[in-house]
């Protein structure tokens, strides 16, 4: 059992959990994830480890409420326990000091986070900064309430560019437009040498389409359906350069220009109907319980 020591809502349907898991806190490297089963009846879900506190022996997840498991998990509070937390899993991010391409000018590494993906690129930005890189962060979301961690990214970035689809904060539009402008702007002024991105598959695909013509190395963090997270089931398979890989052990980060995103999107939809059904029936039961309680309280 894994005790929750901190808990917050950090955006619309974005829930933060800091959990005691000393073994994982000790061994986790940037880019790795854990498999979580909040309750004994839950499925196993992969969550990126957004931060660790080695002294406290804790790890932090940010989970978006998308289905029954994440909805039910959000009922857990400080002092409650998660049933199972296993990790760290996957390869660590490739963190290096990128060399100059134009003499005397600092090259720029861009991290692009979409929605919850920001929780994945944040630790990368921290690690890349620690390795001596200059960082620019681009954070995008549908609207203001879904923008995540912009302050924290500000601490390690030369600049944070926010975009929202509805224009409720930052620049209106998509991260890809901001990225393209940035690449053009920095040409001859240090240049964008690498892009790290995480978020919805469609966004990562679009980011790769932007960087491809420039030949800019682009690292994507993939989020396929997983069960064990240890290479045992193959449920997480993705096609990289025409070859099947298991994202949980061969990834989760890959060279974005080699990924078959369409296949990934298709595979992610495998259980969509079932997930929706389950969420609905859970929420229905939940509401009934609430009404019942209200009734009982009212009758007292």
């Amino acid at each position, binding site marked *: 059992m894994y005790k929750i020591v901190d808990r917050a809502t950090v955006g619309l349907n974005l829930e933060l959990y800091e959990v005691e898991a000393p073994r994982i806190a000790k*061994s986790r490297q940037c880019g790795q994830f854990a498999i979580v089963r909040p309750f004994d*009846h839950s*499925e*196993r879900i992969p969550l990126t480890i957004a931060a660790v506190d080695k002294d406290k022996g804790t790890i932090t997840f940010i989970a978006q409420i998308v289905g029954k498991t994440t909805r039910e998990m959000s009922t857990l509070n400080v002092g409650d326990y998660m049933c199972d937390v*296993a990790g760290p899993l996957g390869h660590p991010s490739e963190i290096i000091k990128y060399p100059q391409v134009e003499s005397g000018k600092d090259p720029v590494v861009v991290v692009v986070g979409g929605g919850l993906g920001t929780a994945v690129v944040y630790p990368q930005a921290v690690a890349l900064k620690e390795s001596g890189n200059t960082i620019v962060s681009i954070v995008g979301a549908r609207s203001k309430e879904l923008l995540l961690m912009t302050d924290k990214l500000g601490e390690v970035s030369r600049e944070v560019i926010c975009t929202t689809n509805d224009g409720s904060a930052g620049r209106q539009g998509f991260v890809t437009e901001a990225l393209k402008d940035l690449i053009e702007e920095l040409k001859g002024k240090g240049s964008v040498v690498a892009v790290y991105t995480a978020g919805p598959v469609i966004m990562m695909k679009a980011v790769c389409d932007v960087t491809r013509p420039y030949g800019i190395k682009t690292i994507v963090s993939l989020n396929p359906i997983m069960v064990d997270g240890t290479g045992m089931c*193959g449920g997480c398979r993705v096609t990289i350069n025409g070859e*099947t890989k298991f994202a949980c052990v061969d990834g989760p980060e890959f060279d974005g220009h080699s990924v078959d995103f369409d296949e990934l999107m298709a595979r992610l939809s495998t*259980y969509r109907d*079932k997930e929706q059904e389950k969420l609905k029936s859970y929420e229905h039961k939940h509401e009934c319980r609430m009404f019942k309680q209200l009734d009982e309280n009212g009758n007292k």
Partner: protein
Amino acid sequence: MAELTKKERVAIPAQQMPERPGNERNKDFKEVNLGLSQEQAVLEASRCLQCKNPPCVSDCPVSVNIPEFIRLISERKFIEAALLIRRDNSLPAITGRVCPQEKQCQSRCLRGKIDSSVAIGWLERFAADYLAAAQAAGEVSAETMAAKSDAIKVAVVGSGPAGLACAGELARMGYAVTVFEAFHKAGGVLVYGIPEFRLPNDIVEREVQQLKSNGVVFETNVIVGRTVKIHELMEEEHFKAVFIANGAGLPSFMGITGENLKGVYSANEYLTRSNLMGAFDRNSDTPITAGKKVCVVGGGNTAMDAVRTSIRLGSEQSHLVYRRDLAQMPARIEEVHHAEQEGVIFDLLTSPIEILADENGWVSGIKCVKMQLKEADASGRQGVTQIPNSEFIIECDQVIMAIGIKANPLLTAATPELNLNAKGYIQTDATGMTSIPGVFAGGDIVRGAATVILAMGDGKKTAESMNNWLSANA
């Protein structure tokens, strides 16, 4: 029963295992075999000819004293029989259900020359279940012990049959044993792979509980190599020896077009979802797609388990697609019979070459070719070749690949000091020790995909080597 004459023994007919009818059991996940009654067990045991040089014992990978435990059953000394088996085989309720007896102990049973072999597996199961029931009822006290506070610490990686057997032996020898398991539940293939209808999880759980009451500590959710490394266990946590039994567990795919379509599973994923995660229950939080027309590719126990699971999940048609013939199937013969009774369609001498998709990216069929067997080679193995122009399509909405497993490199890659063979399995010396002093290994990660009894035998034998090594070095 008074001592029987040989003639009287030979007159006793073979007993039949009571089982639930095929068209009743194929709708749920409850166990197929119901177990012999006491009367049946005594009769079956009395069929044993009590050979002086019993071939059954030499064909048993762990040399259980078979004629003796059978004699005890024939004398109604059921508990003594079970305890006798347990001396050589720590998991008899499990092996009695899943051992390939027809290839081992029962293969050269002399009684088989007269009519049919003594049902050694069924008798083993009977004795083990009898003992467990007696223990549960408090009629026999289960052994309990606790490791002394100054006991030497020993780690076991993986809680499949190899790990469980090794942990049990080491605890009995007085070591402080911790089993590290990657999953949230102990048991290895016995809980995530083999379905409830063949091996109820309660039986595995019983063995795990027994080990716990003997002082073995289980730490789940620990992926050795990621959560903690072997050298850290030894240097920082002071484990003086380690037994690696992490199984093979990396599913193979065929490499044909369409394998990543929606509706294509590895058998490992399909069975893990159903068994370990409980997706066979529709209310489970873990989803599974229940195909209407299912094709399972392969001919081993895993393929049988997957195809029989698909029937229970409500398929209208479940096919087993296998590239050789019935006689070459590696699955236990009992499972093949059960699959036939439950309505599995066997497409033999058939090999897939492509998986086809519908307009939404779901599986719509598999394109296959017919195969033919070649002459046996010097080793007696028969290869297969494609029959030209024999392509045909089996329509289906789900494909499950059960064509074998390979060595999972997760632990070994994180432990570069381990010597591996060309296929990535761990190399050990005759005592079971790896290239790292004090680190031993056994089960599927050494042998390649093998059997429960071989894994268990490795665990037990290696525990002895570890004891010898620790006595000299710790």
